[in-house]
């Protein structure tokens, strides 16, 4: 389980090092075996929150625990897989060399078969002997996915996993998430694409301007969305967003962003 308690993160900006809050007093529990979608507009603080969870950034205030360990402790990442937004790999190394390095870092000494299996499941097996810097964006994303699911981690954290993928890639990626969901993995993924919300998530958290404005089960939010839809007369967004849930989340972000 992942537990964020009163987490605030500010960065120093400008010549005088003025504080600029990226995340403000965020408290959130990510439950085991659930898929939690983390939604919000660009610049809401989603990636900063995820980077704090995986230990890349230290919170300015508050604490984050993963399975009882502080997020900065390497043991917190023993059963954690992370897929960054726009992953990249060093030049000159082949896909198979990269994946074998990461499996060694996990101390799992993955056999050739296990590595091949991870590459196949991510749909990148055919390109294993090609240098990773020659991969397309989709292939790079798949290689990063293969790395994140190495060692069969219990917790998977995906930062904008579907961004930049073509429709086929999106579909295949979603299928992988569905398979992981069936295996009761704890999945936390960020997205600003509201269409991903209902089909993938058990729970939805919405972050706007660094503040958590919603954190509920999908069923509960759907009820709220239905009620909101009945109240709302204006259907001008119907072209972009088709379901009451999408419209509700859109309006929620828009209103909270203005406040």
């Amino acid at each position: 389980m992942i537990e964020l308690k009163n987490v605030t993160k500010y960065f120093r900006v400008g010549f005088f090092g003025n504080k600029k809050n990226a995340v403000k007093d965020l408290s959130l529990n990510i439950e085991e075996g659930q898929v939690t979608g983390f939604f919000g507009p660009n610049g809401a603080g989603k990636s900063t929150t995820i980077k704090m969870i995986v230990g890349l950034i230290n919170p300015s205030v508050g604490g984050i625990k993963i399975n009882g360990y502080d997020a900065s402790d390497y043991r917190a990442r023993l059963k954690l897989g992370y897929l960054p937004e726009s992953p990249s790999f060093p030049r000159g190394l082949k896909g198979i060399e990269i994946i074998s390095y990461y499996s060694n870092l996990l101390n799992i000494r993955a056999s050739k078969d296990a590595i091949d299996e991870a590459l196949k499941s991510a749909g990148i097996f055919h390109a294993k002997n090609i240098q990773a810097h020659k991969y397309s964006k989709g292939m790079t994303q798949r290689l990063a996915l293969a790395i994140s699911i190495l060692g069969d981690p219990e917790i998977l954290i995906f930062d904008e996993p579907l961004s930049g993928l073509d429709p086929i890639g999106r579909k295949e990626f979603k299928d992988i998430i569905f398979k992981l969901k069936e295996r009761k993995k704890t999945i936390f993924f960020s997205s600003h694409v509201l269409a991903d919300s209902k089909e993938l998530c058990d729970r939805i958290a919405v972050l706007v301007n660094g503040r958590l404005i919603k954190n509920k089960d999908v069923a509960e939010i759907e009820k709220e969305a239905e009620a909101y839809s009945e109240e709302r007369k204006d259907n001008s967004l119907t072209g972009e967003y088709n379901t009451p849930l999408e419209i509700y989340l859109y309006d929620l972000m828009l209103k909270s962003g203005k406040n």
Partner: protein
Amino acid sequence: MEKILYGAMYSFKEIKSSKIFYSFLIFALILISGSYFVSQTSFINQGRIMVDFSIFAISIFNIFIGIFIGSSVVYDDIEKKSVFLALTRPIRRTQYLIGRFLGLAAAIIFSTIIMMLIFYFVLLIMHKFIVPAMPVVKTVRHAIKPPLAGSMPFTLYSLPQPLIIQGFFIIIESVFISAAALLFSLVTSKALASIFAILVFFIGNVSSRMNDLIKPVRKVINGKTVTVHQANHTLAAIVHFIYTVLPNFSLFNISSEAAYKISVSGGGISYRIIYGICYTALLFVISSLIFASKDIA
């Protein structure tokens, strides 16, 4: 420990296939091979000119590898975000940094060995400056049973001791400056880190000479021995401070000894090795502390 070794292997592979690394390596090899032509400009001491020129090429290109790759090895990982996947594995940041640094050190050792081998073959072909490796030949002769004993078809040659030691010092010096470049790259941009490292290297090479220049000297004036200060106290203090704080890279330059085949004493070698390793370790510890608390966004 295993994670560090895997990191070092991965880092070495990456550096070995980087353009900047093999560009410097090829340039150095061209210069070393061309040292013969440079030596032809002189009628005397052609071997010494070859040695001077080649040692300079080996040293400067390894320093460049140390500075330019040292300043980018972690900086690029952060900039290109390739560090994300590694640091979100169950690995300590220090382990990651050690792995990267050892990979860089291995690349420097690799390039120095390649350069020294080419240098050796150039000297061997020109039959200049090499010495018969007597102890080795003797051992071989003892090991071989008659009737082959005493009739070796060839003589083994090696580089003289100071040249081998110089090669070893080049490795220490390059690893040392790469540690400085790595440290700078963690607190500033890659370009600035390279510039700072070059400045440190330059000042480190001239600081001991400057310190000698400002030292008070004793002169005999009107029959009396007096101590004369050659610079004012402020300037002397500044130069002495720079000399004390910044690393003294001139210690690792024994090209004069190498050119005149003067053996370097064991004590001198040990002192320089310990100095280099301690300073490198100190710079690495500071880098490690900075990296451990750095926000990687």
